[in-house]
C-alpha cells in the first residue's frame, strides 16, 4: 500500500477513486504522569517514552486507515493528512492522532 500526501503517483496511473479513508487514535491522559513519575528518560532534550507513545498512536491510526483502504479494494492512499491535537479539558492531556486520505486504485504506466 502506497501512502503519499501528494495528488498523484509518479509513473502510475490512477484508474479509480475508491473513497475516503480515515483513522483515529488517542494517546491517554496518563502519558504525562508516566513520563514524570518514573525515570526521566530524557535523551538529548527529548523524551523517548513520549516519542514511543506518539509512534504507537500514529501506527495504530495509519494501520486502521490502510485496513479500510484494502477493504475498498484500493492499493494506494493519496492526499494523506495527519494531525495531532491536544484535547485538553477534563480529559487531561489527551492527544488525538488523526489521519485521512483518498483511497485509489492505480496501475503502472506502460510507457
Amino acid at each position: 500500500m502506497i501512502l503519499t500526501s501528494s495528488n498523484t503517483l509518479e509513473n502510475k496511473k490512477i484508474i479509480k477513486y475508491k473513497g475516503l479513508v480515515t483513522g483515529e487514535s488517542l494517546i491517554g491522559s496518563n502519558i504525562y504522569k508516566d513520563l514524570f513519575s518514573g525515570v526521566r528518560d530524557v535523551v538529548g532534550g527529548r523524551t523517548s517514552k513520549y516519542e514511543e507513545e506518539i509512534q504507537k498512536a500514529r501506527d495504530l491510526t495509519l494501520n486502521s486507515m490502510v485496513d479500510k483502504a484494502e477493504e475498498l479494494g484500493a492499493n494506494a492512499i493519496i492526499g494523506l493528512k495527519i494531525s495531532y491535537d491536544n484535547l485538553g479539558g477534563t480529559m487531561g492531556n489527551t492527544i488525538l492522532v488523526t489521519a485521512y486520505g483518498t483511497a485509489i486504485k492505480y496501475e503502472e504506466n506502460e510507457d
Partner: protein
Amino acid sequence: MKIRNKELDLNRLVKSIFCIAVGTGVGIIVYIIFILLNIAIFGWNLGLIFAPLVAGYVETELANRILKENLGAISAFILFIDTTFYSFILKNPTLGFNIITAGAIIVILQAAFPTLINYIFLVVIGGIISQTIGSLKHISEPMINFAKDVLSRYREETEEEIKSRTVPHFDESESNHYLNNLNFFFLTSTDMNDKKHKVIGNYQAYVIIENDRKLIHLEPERAEKEFLKKIKHGKDECLTKLSNEIKNDQGNAILNLSIKYNLVSIKGDIQISATGMGLYIQ
C-alpha cells in the same frame, strides 16, 4: 532603598535623612494630635493608622522634590515602631489580648507592610482554604465511589444505566462503507487529475462533541475509549452533513477535504469541522 544603587555622596545622604526626619516629625505630630483629641474606636487610637500614612506621604513628596526619587517611606516604618511601642507597651502595659487587639495588630501591620499583609491574606490564607476544601473532596470522593461500587455489586445495573455510561458501539468497517456509499466523493487531494468538473463553492460543516461528565467516573482507559467512539461518530455525522449540503446544491464531490478537531470550551467540548471545495464531477 534605591539610594544604595547610587554613589553615596554625603550631600544626598544628608538630604535623605532630612526627608525621613521631616516625615517622621510630621507623623509624630499627627499622632500627638490624635491622642490629644482622643480620636479612637473601642479605645484604639486611629492615629496608629494615620500617623504612619501621613509620615510616609510627607517623606515621599519631599524626597520626590529634593532628590527626584522615592525613599520607600522609611518614616512610615519608624512611625509604626514608635507608635506601637508607645501605645502597646508604654501607655498600656497591661493590655490584654482579645479580638479588638488582634484586629488592631492586623490593621497596624496592614498599614506598615501593605504588600506583605495583602499577600498573606489573599494568597497564603486563600491558598490554605482552597487546599483544605480540595483535600476534603479528594478524601470524600474515593469513599463515595467505593460505596457506590460496593452497592452496585449487590444489584445488577439496569440496561438504561449501562447505556447512559457508554457510547454506542462504533463499527469501523460499517462506517467505512457508509461514508463511501453516500453517492458522493470525498477527495483529500487538491487536484482532479484532468477529470471534468464544475466548481460550486466552498463548504463547511461542523459538529460539537460535548464532553460527557459521566465519563470522568469511568476508569481512564475506558473513558478514553468511550470518548474516541464519540469522536468517530461525530466525524461521520460531520461528513454526512457536509455531503448533504453539497448535494442540495447539485454537487457530488468535495475537493481538498480538511477535517479538524479543536477544543472549544474549558469544559472539554470538541468541535469537529470539515471544509473543502464543493464540485460536480461529470
